[in-house]
């Protein structure tokens, strides 16, 4: 009996320790980023572009990367939504009776979700070579769009599935067409759409492997789709390797900015999900 109790206790402690490691790793990472980043944070960092070249110049900040990231993640999310809202509606509201078809489509998106961003980057690069686009804001947006489509479709699909069947039937029985019913459903899932936007934006802003080949890098804020653009992750990646201390500092500060941005986005989306499930009928 004592042996069994001891065994129970032993494994319980082991489990608690494991939980502490898993949850603690989050605080360790965020702590490290804050500790290193805060000394280099100042107003210049978020209001100026790097002076004298991003790799050696000691002056300025990372405004180019902040704006570039917002452009790419924003553009990709908008493009992604235009594609994924119809897809999610189609899977849920238009395919009738054929469960296998929709299951297969869902699985395809699960698989697409699992494809690593470096493969999307390489594929985006192939598309660009094919159409003769150079590394630019446009190229980055294309690659990140490919990356976020599966996230958007999966999230939208999940929220549409929570809409009760009665609501759809009620709309249909009033003589609404399928498309009119879809509009009712879309209104119902609006908080879910915001969640999807946040998730996609968060993923888009943080990814580096997909924009590495496609967006290029520039010290300037891009003024057209065909100019190369910097992003925060790229700025971190490139500047961390610099021998100049101030430039490394810029990488730490960028890491802090990016972490803060992503944490805010994640928290917002969590709150959205909670709110959504509370208002569910």
């Amino acid at each position, binding site marked *: 009996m004592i042996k*069994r109790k001891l*065994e*129970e206790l032993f*494994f*319980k402690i082991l*489990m*608690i320790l*494991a*939980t502490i*490691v*898993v*949850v603690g790793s*989050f*605080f*360790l*990472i965020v702590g490290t*980023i804050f500790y*290193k980043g805060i000394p280099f944070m100042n107003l210049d960092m978020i209001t100026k572009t790097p002076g004298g070249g991003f790799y050696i110049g000691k002056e300025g900040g990372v405004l180019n990367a902040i704006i570039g990231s917002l452009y790419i993640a924003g553009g990709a999310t908008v493009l992604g939504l235009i*594609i*994924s809202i*119809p*897809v999610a509606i*189609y*899977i849920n509201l238009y395919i009738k009776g054929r469960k296998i078809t929709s*299951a297969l*489509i869902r699985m*395809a998106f*699960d*698989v*697409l979700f*699992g*494809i*690593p*961003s*470096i*493969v*999307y980057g*390489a*594929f985006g690069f*192939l*598309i660009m070579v094919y159409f003769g686009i150079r590394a630019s804001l446009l190229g980055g947006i294309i690659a990140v769009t*490919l990356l976020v*489509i599966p996230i958007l*479709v999966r999230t939208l699909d999940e929220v549409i599935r929570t809409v009760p069947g009665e609501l759809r039937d009620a709309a249909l029985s009033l003589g609404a067409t399928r498309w009119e019913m879809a509009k009712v459903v879309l209104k119902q899932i609006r908080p879910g759409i915001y969640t999807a936007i946040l998730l996609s934006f*968060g993923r888009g802003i*943080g*990814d*580096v*492997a997909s924009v*590495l080949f496609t967006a290029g890098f520039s010290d300037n804020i891009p003024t057209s789709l065909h100019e190369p653009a910097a992003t925060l*992750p790229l700025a971190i*990646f490139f500047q*961390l390797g610099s021998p100049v201390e101030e430039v490394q500092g810029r990488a*730490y500060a960028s*890491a802090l900015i*990016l*972490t803060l941005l992503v*944490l805010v986005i*994640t928290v917002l989306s*969590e709150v959205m999900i909670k709110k959504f499930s509370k208002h569910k009928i």
Partner: protein
Amino acid sequence: MLVFTMASVSLIAIIGIGLFYRSIPILHQSSWHDLLTKSVWKPLKGLFGFYPFIMGTLWVTGIAIIIALPLCVLTAFYLVEYAHPKVKRVLIPFVNLLSGIPPVIFGVWGVLFIVPFIQSSIAPHFVDFSTGYSVLAGGIVLAVMIFPLIVSILNEVLTTIPQELKDASLALGATKWETIKKVIIRKAAPGIIAATVLAISRAFGETIAVLMVCGNNAIVPHSVFDPGYPLPALIANNYGEMLSIPMYDSALMFAALLLFIIILLFNIVSRIILTRLERKLTT
């Protein structure tokens, strides 16, 4: 809508075909077998052996899974079976926050924390000298990156296990741990396997974080303190030169194709297991 759906679904095939098409030149030059088993990597001489990179990927992924799996299984058991609902409600959001952190931040953390830690605290006990940039560093960083994925899948799988089963075992006088060991693990086994397979495929494709910490030496690692050079890092590091050396772009696209095929297979397998499990437990 049909067009968009079909277009995005067929993206899988298009990516595969596109990458394969660009790999044809190198496949003409040497066979699959040669590419995968030769270990000499000299692009300037036209020698492309992927063996060191494949081994680098396997080492880093293996270490990550060995570290992450036990920790995550224990964490999931604790959260689902032991933790007070309030505790669970506080802890789960942190796991979600961890999953939102971008890869490059994990990389920075690896460079600033894990690499120096290995160099000064772990490696001296085992080897004469290590810079810290090693497959072990890559494995640890990757392990932390896949924590949220495994924990959230296991969390879902474990909560779908019927309460009656647990109650029956507990009523027979078994302790909670005995119930976990003899009943729950058996029921959850397919879910644990699926989560592992999914985690492996995520780890295979992870690029930047691993690239930043694992040294990037095109050699076959022989210990955890050796540097390695995984496939994704190879692609990411060399895209700049790839158009200036003949066959180089084809070789890199072949690397991407390899990754794509492996990850595709792993994903399909794990998704099939998970869907079956879901169906079995809900009916």
